[in-house]
């Protein structure tokens, strides 16, 4: 019962994350969607580990790895955004000008 609740919650998080990742125009918001999907994965792992796998330590390690993936995604994603923003600065400001009209 608990496991079903947890997994349904995780599924909903993945669903919302997918919606966010697909619908958002900006790259930064897309990262939010990805993080939310990983959040769902984390919740599912915690649920499985706790209720279905008898607490085998690999489950906890898996959760840590999901968090590491989040950190890596965050660091590399934002570094890429900085690099792109710096390179295509003129374009970005142009698009801002178009939007301003």
């Amino acid at each position, binding site marked *: 019962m608990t496991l079903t609740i947890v997994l349904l919650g995780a599924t909903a998080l993945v669903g919302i994350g997918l919606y966010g990742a697909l619908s958002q125009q900006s790259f930064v918001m897309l990262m939010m969607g990805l993080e939310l999907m990983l959040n769902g994965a984390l919740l599912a792992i915690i649920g499985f580990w706790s209720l279905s796998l008898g607490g085998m330590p690999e489950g906890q390690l898996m959760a840590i790895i999901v968090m590491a993936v989040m950190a890596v995604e965050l660091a590399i994603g934002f570094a890429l955004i*900085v690099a792109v*923003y*710096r390179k295509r*600065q003129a374009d*970005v*400001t142009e698009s*801002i000008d178009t*939007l*301003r*009209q």
Partner: protein
Amino acid sequence: MMSLSRLMSRAPAPVFPAIGPGRQADVERLLSRSGLRAAATPRDAAILLVAGDIPGTAAAPLARVHDQIPRPRVTVSWGHDEPDAIAARIAEAWREVCAGGEGEGDRLPDEPPNKWKGVGPNGQGGKGMMGGVPYGRPMAMTGPDIRDGLQLDRYTARFGPFAPMLPPGLVLEVTLQGDVICDVTVETQPFAQPADADAPDLCAARMLRLLGLAGPADRATAGKKPRGVWMRGAVPGGLGSVDGAGDARDRLSRWLSGTPVTASVPDIPALLKGAEWSEAMLILASLPPSAILRACQTPEAA
């Protein structure tokens, strides 16, 4: 209720000083007394201390600062009274504030900086995402940066003449990106101060305040030796170098040892441009008020 207001009135009176020409040293000495507390922002104050004759150009800023003090509030003007008399008047004003009441009303009309009514399908301020004046003000726009070339928003504002970290009277128009100064011009020169304001203990106290040492700064103002750790070392080396007067750290050392500093006229905008806000404020505090005034009087700085 009565006892609460009595308890409140035993707190040091929170005073925001608006320092006029020639009164900087007087006000600094006054506010280092116990029973008075110099507020760094009008939000933290109840009493506006107007020292000296504020010139007409600074009347509107004075009204703004006055209105920013939460109610109830009282203005105390300091003409030529003795410091003891003015301290007593401030204490009286603080008791009055603690007793409650409406206090003084606003000096400026209750009008938003720009008329604004939500428009568009989402109630935004104007056309597009960055347009219009949402809540009465436009939004900051991107512009070139002078450090790392990442063009983000530039925030332009006029700071002063009653900013506690700037010399009294000085108005700087500053363009910030993050907290780095991209552009700075002197709008109004600081008020002239007598030679007393260049006294080493007062100058040292101004720098110590910026270093987070309010207690030692009060001691320095009272002519005692300030007790602090890492006072000179906390000032980064090479900051605000001026020909013949060393850098900010050297000047603080000299003031702490009681030697006055005379600096040749520096160009203020050139010194501040490109500095971080905290560094810029340290640079300004590390120059004697007379030197800053001389620098602002030269034509190319204006």
